[in-house]
Structure formats: structure tokens, C-alpha cells
């Protein structure tokens, strides 16, 4: 006798695979805290102060080169990522952050897409509800007669 009914095996396999995948993704997406990884991350988070739309990591401007050289020094001095970001914001303003802050004007960048998605979901919900209520084609008396005849034929066959 089997401990678990065979029909549950695919579901159990699915749960195991999904769990393993989640664990792998969770472990691999945990950011590394090595100085090299932090430097790389910060240079991609900071915008070149004298360019348009380029990160410090991608820019050849001398200001970006200075920042690339400065970040490891600050990490070695024991500064946290946030302290380093704050330092550059104090020098160049919030425009140096490629990821908008979650306060002030930067909040708009986070809220606007969220509000738009919520509006879209609400709109979709109400539209689907309306569409499900209103039949696309109303049944004519002829249609109903066809259905009645078909059901009667089926009943006769079943009885006979």
C-alpha cells in the first residue's frame, strides 16, 4: 500500500521544485558585502555628475573616475553604503542617485507607476465584471426553440 496516493505525486514534485527554486533565488539574490561588490554596486547606483543618463560605472568623465577611485577609499574607512550615498548627495544633490529616493519629489517616481497600475487593475476588474454580466448575444426565441428540441431529443434517447 502506498503512503501517498499516486495522483498527488505531480503536485508534490511541483511543490518541491518550486521550493528549491525559491531557495536558490533567495540565496543567489542576497547582495554580497565584499568591498569589490559594494564598489561595483555603488558605481552603478550613482549617476555621473556631468553626463546625461550615464552611471559612474559607465562614464569616462574625470568626475566619474574620481568617484570610482573614491568609493573604495570610503569603504576602507568603514563608511556604510548609505553614508557614501549621502556624501555624494551632499556634494551633487539628489540627481546623483539613479534610483529615486522614497521621499520628496523622488516619491513621485515610485507612486506614479503604482497608482497607474492600481487604476488599471480597478478598470480591468470593473470592465470584466460588466462584460460577464452582459451576454454578448441575446438568445432569440428561435434559439431557445432549438435548445428545447435538442434537449427533448436527448431525453427521449436516454429514456428509450
Amino acid at each position: 500500500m502506498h503512503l501517498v496516493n499516486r495522483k498527488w505525486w505531480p503536485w508534490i514534485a511541483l511543490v518541491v521544485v518550486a521550493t528549491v527554486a525559491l531557495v536558490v533565488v533567495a540565496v543567489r539574490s542576497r547582495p554580497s558585502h565584499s568591498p569589490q561588490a559594494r564598489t561595483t554596486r555603488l558605481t552603478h547606483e550613482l549617476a555621473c555628475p556631468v553626463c546625461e543618463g550615464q552611471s559612474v560605472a559607465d562614464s569616462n568623465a574625470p568626475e566619474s573616475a574620481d568617484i570610482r577611485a573614491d568609493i573604495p577609499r570610503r569603504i576602507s574607512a568603514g563608511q556604510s553604503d548609505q553614508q557614501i550615498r549621502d556624501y555624494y548627495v551632499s556634494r551633487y544633490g539628489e540627481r546623483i542617485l539613479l534610483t529615486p529616493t522614497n521621499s520628496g519629489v523622488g516619491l513621485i517616481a515610485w507612486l506614479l507607476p503604482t497608482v497607474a497600475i492600481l487604476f488599471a487593475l480597478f478598470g480591468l476588474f470593473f470592465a470584466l465584471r460588466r462584460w460577464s454580466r452582459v451576454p454578448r448575444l441575446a438568445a432569440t426565441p428561435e434559439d431557445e426553440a432549438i435548445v428545447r428540441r435538442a434537449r427533448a431529443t436527448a431525453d427521449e434517447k436516454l429514456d428509450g
Partner: protein
Amino acid sequence: MRLRARWIAIMVGVVLVAFGVVLAVQHRNEPSIPRLVQEHGPMPSFTVTTLAGAPLESSSLKGKTVVVNFFNSWCIPCQQEAPQLKAFYAEHKNEADFAMVGIVRDDETAAVRAYVDTQKLGWTIATDPNGSAALGFGTTGQPETYVIAPDGAAVCGSLGASSQADLDTWLAAARAGQECTS
């Protein structure tokens, strides 16, 4: 129902236009005054190396009215600014509380030496090997000039070339403990 849809469309349009206007205004509003000066921030601490090879600590400038000019030999506005700086320096170099430092950005030391000799620049010129001074001031190019009051606050300055008249005005304001508005 159609009226409501029209109102929603109008509201969405108004929001998008307002957002676009805000972005456009922000983009056009490029400042000509350095951020450090706008905020009257303290002069950042730095160590640069003079062309004579000696270290120059920002702490050695404390208590003076300091003019810090970021420049290099190949930048045309820097070359155009040089005669104004020279006239300004000649006017004030013997004043006890006055100091002027030129900090080189993005240039070769040999080229700077040749430029300084040709232009006959008399004030202290220093290189910024690790960019700490430029980062501390938050420079975004050259030339840039900062006037530091005796209390250490960056009170005046500009992004771009400065004239002798500008520099005289800024120096007087810094000495008087006033802020510069332009």
C-alpha cells in the same frame, strides 16, 4: 458614462502635462552658482600637492579669506579667465588675510607647469591626484571658483569663468560676512 470617461481622460492629460512642465522647468533651471556656495557649506578638508611637490592642507588656510579656482591648461574658458585672475591676485596678494589656490583638474602636471610659466601665474597651484578636493567641492567642470570666508563657509563663487569685478565683489562680501546673491 461617456462623460465620465471624458473627465478621466482630461484629468490624466492634465496630470501628464503638469508632470512634463515640472520636468522641463527642472531641466532648464541649470544653476550657475556651485551647490556648495548655494548651501554656504563649509570648505571641505583636502590635501593637494603644490607644483613644488609640497602637500597643501586645507587646514592651513583656516582663518583666511580663500579663493579656490579649479582649472586646467587646455580649457579655453580657463585661459580666457587667467588675465582676470592675475589682475585680481596682483591687487590682493599682499593682504595678510588673503590666500588664493589654483587646483588642477584633469590635466598632466608637465602641461600645467608649462601653462603656469607661460601665463606667469603667481599664486599657489596644486594638483589633486586622487580628486579629493574636486569631489569635496562637488565640481562639475572647470573653471570653477569658490570664495571661502574666514569662518570657513563657502559664501561666493561661480561655475564658469569669473571676472576681476566678480572676484572683488565676492572677496569684499566674504570679508564682511555677507552672502553673494549672484
